């Protein structure tokens, strides 16, 4: 199955205040794939994700979405192309209710479907239970679920997840992995996620890029992902 390339970076450089963090990242993601990005703390995984969504301007190189360069687009325009983003550290809107948080997510697609809301509440029942609580007072794991639910509301075609399992209880980690895989199968959504949790990587990823010092240093195939020890080794490159 060789489908269209949905996301591609060519020699991407980016960083903060003149200090380069990404130093020529090349990667390619095809429509409908689930790709993991792994690497130690501080190698630039989050920086990469932020450059993809456009919160960080790229200094050199290029980001292509469906073969069109999107470097010049502001983040909100990229989002409107159908790219969803779940940040590391959740960043829910603290003084807004759960429902209102989810409502903001609608901005991406523009078309609001009641079904999607029902689906989200089905995946994450706690959100329904707490729908009027201020998001800032949710527990850490609840916030993470909200952040994921929020992004799904816009029915994106590509989702960028930055450490989605962080702070989530084990069985829900498994649930999230299952949900994402199921969504991927049913809606064809492409998923790129940064992760440290071996089980989550193995449960979700079809392919995996390994980063070190701002570069992609290895790529793990589906077969290599079968082996827990291999993944473990690469996680600590």
């Amino acid at each position: 199955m060789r489908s269209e390339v949905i996301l591609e970076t060519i020699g991407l450089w980016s960083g903060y205040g003149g200090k380069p963090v990404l130093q020529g990242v090349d990667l390619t993601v095809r429509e409908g794939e689930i790709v993991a990005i792994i690497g130690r703390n501080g190698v630039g995984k989050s920086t990469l994700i932020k450059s993809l969504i456009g919160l960080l301007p790229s200094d050199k190189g290029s980001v292509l979405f469906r073969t069109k360069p999107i470097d010049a687009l502001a983040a909100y325009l990229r989002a409107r192309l159908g790219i969803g983003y779940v940040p590391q550290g959740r960043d829910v809107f603290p003084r807004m209710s759960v429902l209102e948080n989810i409502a903001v997510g609608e901005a991406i697609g523009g078309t609001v479907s009641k079904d999607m809301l029902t689906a989200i509440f089905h995946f994450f029942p706690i959100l329904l239970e707490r729908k009027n609580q201020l998001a800032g007072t949710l527990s850490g794991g609840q916030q993470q679920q909200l952040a994921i639910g929020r992004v799904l509301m816009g029915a994106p075609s590509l989702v960028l997840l930055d450490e989605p399992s962080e702070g989530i209880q084990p069985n829900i980690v498994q649930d999230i992995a299952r949900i994402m895989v199921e969504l991927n199968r049913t809606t064809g959504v492409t998923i790129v996620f940064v992760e440290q949790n071996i089980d989550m990587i193995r449960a979700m990823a079809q392919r995996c890029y390994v980063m070190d010092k701002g570069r992609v240093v290895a790529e793990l195939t589906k077969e290599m992902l079968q082996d827990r020890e291999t993944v473990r080794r690469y996680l600590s490159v």
Partner: protein
Amino acid sequence: MDVLYSAFSLLYQSGDAFAFLVLSACGLAVIFGMMGVINLAHGEFILCGAYVSTSATHMGLPLPLAIALGAGVAGLIGMLLERLIVRHLYSRPLDTIVATWGISMIVTQGTLIVLGSTMQGTGTPFGSFVVGNYSYSVYRIVLMGMALATLAALWLVFTRTRFGVLARATIQVPHIAQALGVNTGLIYSLTFGLGAALAGLAGGLYAPTMTLVPTMGSAFIVEAFVTVVIGGADIFLGTAPAAAILGVVKAALTSWQGQLAGQIGMLLAVIVVIRILPRGISGWILKERA
């Protein structure tokens, strides 16, 4: 009958103070409450509304249209200033104090240079009416009505429209809102513009009743700040009750001990309320609700 008359008089006085506080504060509440920007140029947006509407009236525009025009122009100028200046300062809210202070100086003195030291008033429309021993101005009743209407309109905008949700999201975590597809730049401009337009509206509404000079904005600004502080960050939960409470306090103290007592009483109320409710009335309501 006398009881009714004095009840009406108390209602009228409190309502009058209430209207002044609400109309002064709304624009500030939007800009400060929503965006966290301390806008020291608030008074100058009021000035803008007042001058534009008065000039328009002099040119023959009917008063309601002239006032709307004043609000509109103030709003547009607000959006412009947001684009040019305020936009760059959201990450440093306290620096906005300096920037807006600068804007305020430019506008006040610029008005003096360009338009002279004063502008001729248009006179208050609608005449007066008598209840019991007192005669009252009809226009003040209109002002009270406008204060209520403004509150209602704002409430609708911020709770019943998508704009309200997106505006609050943008202000709380701007980069995430952006990454979720919200045109945060536009939202900021619109919110700031709305605040400025509300200030302009206050200016337009009060212009017929006041001296028109380049420094007239300062007559509003203390009251506006006090109301917003007592109200807390949320406009509807805060500003309206704060204005109501302060209106009564002020009217009562003024009729009892004169204007100075009214003024000082109001400022002391700030300190007392803040001591009891550090996050204002709305902070208290929200906490109770959560």
